């Protein structure tokens, strides 16, 4: 009954969605205002979809194996948290979540943006509704999550064991909040073009709605990366897997958008470019979904196995992107507002920053689809992986990072480098910092550059922050006087500083990681850098839905106990799969990372141990970037208060 009700609600939501679109189009000539009544109906769409999704979760919690999706992805013995997460750990369920979040954003957008011209809002809502309708249609026709089985099995097939993890419970919803958050700038951009009134100021609208997905995308990518770090057992945190790449693409485009909007705000220029970036951001979100779901690539993420689905999704995406581009080409602003820029003006540097981000995105995108292109055109197979991206992206990341402090230090409409002394001073300090590391370590050029850039970016962002307050008479006074400027300034400083930390972490891990692979007997101990590691023993046990072997290793530093490492190997009988659970001991600044390998004999095991210096800086840096976006968002609430 539950699943039939869920299905019924989905169908009702689709009908309502179509009705709302028809209403949106038909009432524009008849009714002048957008009545509250229809506003309510749009929140009904969100309510219907939420209940439908909750019912799917209930089916998972009840382990109702007569529902095909539950039978394929759950198991009666699975812990309750993973039963719930099973609802989105598969194709159909995650598509339902996708549509649900689209409607959530529609709801939030309506609730928050009342002050804008009605014509614009109506168009934005129309675009958002149409996108939702396309995906709902797909969900109902080709991937119904509530499909029943005629003969229910006794037990389910279980969720892929490596996906049974706390972080992965949160990863898909947060990433989706990011991906689909980009649908709002997309709808705003297309809706704006359709309104045909280029005088409407959409700056703060787009700025707000591009910062929201920035926060979620950053966190979503971070969660995936941390998961890969401890779950896949290779000690890496970014693998240039196609699925990782496609999540990076909308992030890069969105980052460009967040910065180009600053120029639109200050100089009323680059309107078309900003609109185009808004369209591209969500387009890449959709392309990402297509790549993940089409079965074109094999990875832990590829859960669609029916090629007709892939084709249909491709069709939807093509429709959405192509029509929005046609609207862009026909309706974009012809007003030419060329800025007269100087080398010392912030605008120029932000434009070049945008270009660098787009080039990075192009390389990532081309690298990801290159194997498909070559196979389609020449019937040959090539691989594009980590070493390629390292070689081709490094120069652009260096350019990007080097420009950052200069761009944020120089002035809008600047005529000359008035801060040239500070900039040169910062460069000198950073070179000294970077060089000092090689008193202890062997010199490598890339390490040197990485350290230099991290110090340059971090110091630059701090200096910008302090110099702003130096110009004010009193810190508290200035906080009171301009809350908007301050939360933007704090947000920006935080995000830029986080980026500097990220560079530092990446440089440190790639340059100074220590790896050790050896056979160890119980009772034996070995040294790694200054750490002494003692193999205490091995333990077998049976858990609720898996069996495990776990080793116990004591780590001592200068004869003081630092902690115990407990690496595991698990066998999930329901799928006959073996997973390795790395054990990680963060002892600042190093992470000790251990993986249990094969059994050699009764007492000896293969053990891989890594020392990962400063890897926590990677996570911390990314968290600060997301936090920076969040703090910038606060400027909008203080702005409203300020007005009141």
């Amino acid at each position, binding site marked *: 009954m539950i699943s039939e009700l869920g299905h019924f609600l989905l169908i009702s939501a689709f009908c309502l969605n179509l009705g709302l679109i028809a209403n949106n189009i038909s009432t524009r000539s008849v009714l002048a205002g957008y009545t509250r009544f229809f506003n309510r109906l749009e929140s009904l769409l969100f309510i219907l979809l939420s209940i439908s999704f909750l019912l799917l979760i209930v089916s998972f919690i009840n382990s109702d194996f007569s529902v095909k999706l539950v039978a394929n992805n759950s198991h009666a013995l699975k812990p309750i948290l993973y039963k719930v997460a099973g609802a989105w750990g598969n194709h159909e369920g995650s598509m339902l979540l996708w549509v649900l979040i689209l409607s959530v954003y529609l709801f939030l957008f309506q609730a928050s943006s009342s002050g804008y011209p009605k014509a614009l809002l109506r168009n934005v809502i129309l675009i958002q509704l149409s996108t939702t309708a396309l995906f709902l249609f797909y969900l109902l026709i080709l991937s119904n999550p509530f499909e029943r089985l005629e003969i229910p099995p006794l037990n389910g097939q279980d969720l892929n064991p490596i996906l049974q993890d706390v972080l992965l419970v949160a990863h898909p919803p947060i990433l989706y909040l990011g991906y689909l958050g980009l649908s709002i700038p997309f709808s705003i951009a297309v809706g704006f073009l359709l309104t045909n009134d280029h005088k409407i100021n959409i700056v703060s609208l787009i700025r707000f709605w591009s910062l929201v997905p920035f926060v979620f995308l950053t966190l979503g990518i971070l969660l995936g990366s941390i998961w890969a770090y401890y779950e896949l057992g290779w000690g890496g945190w970014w693998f240039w897997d196609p699925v990782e790449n496609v999540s990076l693409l909308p992030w890069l485009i969105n980052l460009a958008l967040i910065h180009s909007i600053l120029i639109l705000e200050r100089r009323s220029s680059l309107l078309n470019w900003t609109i185009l970036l808004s369209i591209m951001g969500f387009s890449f979100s959709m392309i990402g979904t297509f790549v993940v779901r089409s079965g074109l690539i094999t990875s832990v993420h590829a859960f669609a196995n029916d090629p007709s689905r892939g084709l249909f999704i491709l069709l939807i995406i093509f429709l959405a992107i192509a029509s929005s581009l046609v609207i862009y080409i026909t309706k974009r602003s012809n007003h030419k507002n*060329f800025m007269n820029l100087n080398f010392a003006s912030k605008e120029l540097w932000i434009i070049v920053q945008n270009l660098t981000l787009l080039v990075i995105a192009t390389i990532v995108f081309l690298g990801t689809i290159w194997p498909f292109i070559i196979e389609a055109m020449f019937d040959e197979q090539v691989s594009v992986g980590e070493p390629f991206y390292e070689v081709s992206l490094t120069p652009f990341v260096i350019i990007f990072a080097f420009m950052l402090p200069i761009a944020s230090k120089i002035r809008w409409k600047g005529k000359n480098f008035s801060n040239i002394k500070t900039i040169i001073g910062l460069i000198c300090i950073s070179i000294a910092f970077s060089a000092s590391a090689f008193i202890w370590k062997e010199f490598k050029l890339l390490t040197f550059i990485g350290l230099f850039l991290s110090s340059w970016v971090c110091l630059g962002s701090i200096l910008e922050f302090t110099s702003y307050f130096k110009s004010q008479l009193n810190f508290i006074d200035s906080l009171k006087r301009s809350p908007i400027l301050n939360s933007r300034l704090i947000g920006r400083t935080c995000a830029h500083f986080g980026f500097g930390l990220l560079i530092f972490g990446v440089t440190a891990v790639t340059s100074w990681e220590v790896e050790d692979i050896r056979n160890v007997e119980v009772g034996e101990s070995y040294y790694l850098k200054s750490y002494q590691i003692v193999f205490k023993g091995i333990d077998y046990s049976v858990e609720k839905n898996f069996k495990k072997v776990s080793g116990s290793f004591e780590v001592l530093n200068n004869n003081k106990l630092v902690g115990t490492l407990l690496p595991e190997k698990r066998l999930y009988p329901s799928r006959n799969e073996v997973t390795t659970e790395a054990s990680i001991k963060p002892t600042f600044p190093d992470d000790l990372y251990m993986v249990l390998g094969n059994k050699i004999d009764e007492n000896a095991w293969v053990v891989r141990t890594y020392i990962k210096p400063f890897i926590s800086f990677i996570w911390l840096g990314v968290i600060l970037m997301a936090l920076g976006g969040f703090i910038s968002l606060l400027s909008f609430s203080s702005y409203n208060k300020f007005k009141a």
Partner: protein
Amino acid sequence: MRIHYICLIFVLASKAFAVEPSEILNDTKLEDRARNLSSNIRCLVCQNENIDSSESEFAKDLRLYIRDQLVEGRTDEEIEKFLVSKYGSYILFKPEFTGYNIFLYLLGPFIFIFSFIMILLVFLNPKKGE
């Protein structure tokens, strides 16, 4: 998809485990080169792994082969060339800088340089009156 299944069979059948202690060369310089080479070589029976982290027998054989060749004094290029001639260019994660792959390598830098010049031309000297 077929490759996927073959990989699954391998993973289940053999519990081999990435780089094993017995494979490691005593000469650290050669071992470093072996690791460096391995990171560029794809395990053909796996999803998206290099032979360094793959657990398959195929990867193990290649790891041992590379080390044998290094001990015999072959250069990195010779070993990569041999692997490409035997398994095709699919085996390298970093495509060779030849033929159509040149496009893959140069498109990004080309767009950057071209657009950079365009930006300077448009914004540094806008025509008067516009």
